[in-house]
């Protein structure tokens, strides 16, 4: 069983690393964002930021690269801690009937992320870290802090 772990940089990646540690010993690979500093991801996708110019262009590039990685690695399960960088991989995963697990960020106490709202309907498991988010994600599983 192969597991894809995907997250953008910063807090999202910190939270993904915790999942990575939990799954140590399993067959996993990590996709993250291109940043100035080194991370331990096997693959890097260009940064996505909804305020950037030519967002559509960067998003299209992300889709292409995500698809290439997906076809090469053939994951069974895809786990993400956000954010937008995971959208194409999740959509591709859904197309191929893979298991999708999304973990909403620790930073979101009362309001959902845009990525979370988008991927909630297609996720097999949606994990929330704060109880107030049950309002936004009624089928979300409340596990508390990932830290």
């Amino acid at each position, binding site marked *: 069983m192969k597991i894809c772990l995907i997250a953008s940089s910063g807090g999202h990646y910190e939270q993904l690393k915790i999942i990575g540690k*939990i799954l140590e010993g399993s067959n996993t690979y990590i996709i993250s964002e291109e940043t100035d500093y080194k991370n331990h991801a096997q693959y890097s996708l260009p940064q996505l930021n909804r305020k950037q110019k030519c967002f559509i262009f960067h998003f299209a590039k992300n889709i292409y690269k995500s698809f290439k990685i997906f076809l090469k690695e053939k994951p069974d399960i895809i786990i993400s801690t956000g954010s937008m960088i995971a959208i194409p991989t999740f959509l591709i995963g859904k197309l191929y009937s893979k298991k999708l697990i999304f973990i909403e960020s620790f930073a979101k*106490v009362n309001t959902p992320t845009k990525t979370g709202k988008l991927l909630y309907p297609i996720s097999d498991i949606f994990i929330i870290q704060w109880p107030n988010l049950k309002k936004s994600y009624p089928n979300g599983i409340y596990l508390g802090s990932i*830290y």
Partner: protein
Amino acid sequence: MAKFKKELSERNIFREYILIMKRIFVTVGSQKMPFNRLIEYVNNLKDDLSESIVCFIQTGVSNYIPKKVEYKDYLTFEEFNSKMLECDILITHGGTGAIVKGLKEKKRIIAVPRLQCYSEHVDNHQLEIVTELTNLGYILSANTYKELLEAIQKIDTIELREFQSNTKTYEDFFSNYLREQLNVQK
């Protein structure tokens, strides 16, 4: 002999002085947006605090140059850990990574969330988590210079809640989930 005794006693006083100085580590995170406001606040603290403080600021992409304190734009993983371990007080932007690291090291933390209105972040999500952690009693927080000054003055006398890790809940969850998936595959 008298001269030697005098030098020794001066050195002891200096050592005592260093020991009672409060070490403050300030981090603004690795975002591509500056956080000059926090750096300026910390730079001004030295004049307004009656006690002695030693500050170090990790400044990121901020371009405000603090003339009264030591700073560096980025720290290596080891340097960051070292500063975190050494400090008495952590003043941090509202990024969860830095706050949680500080909580795990049992540091006294003052969080200053990056605010959208000052172009410090794309939105106010840092305010959300900082407010919640403050309400729960884990940290103090500040949005203005006055609030930061007050927080530093009272932080040693306030009882802050100790952070307990909840990662085991996720370990158990994923362990069960993977076992289920493997059984389904058979």
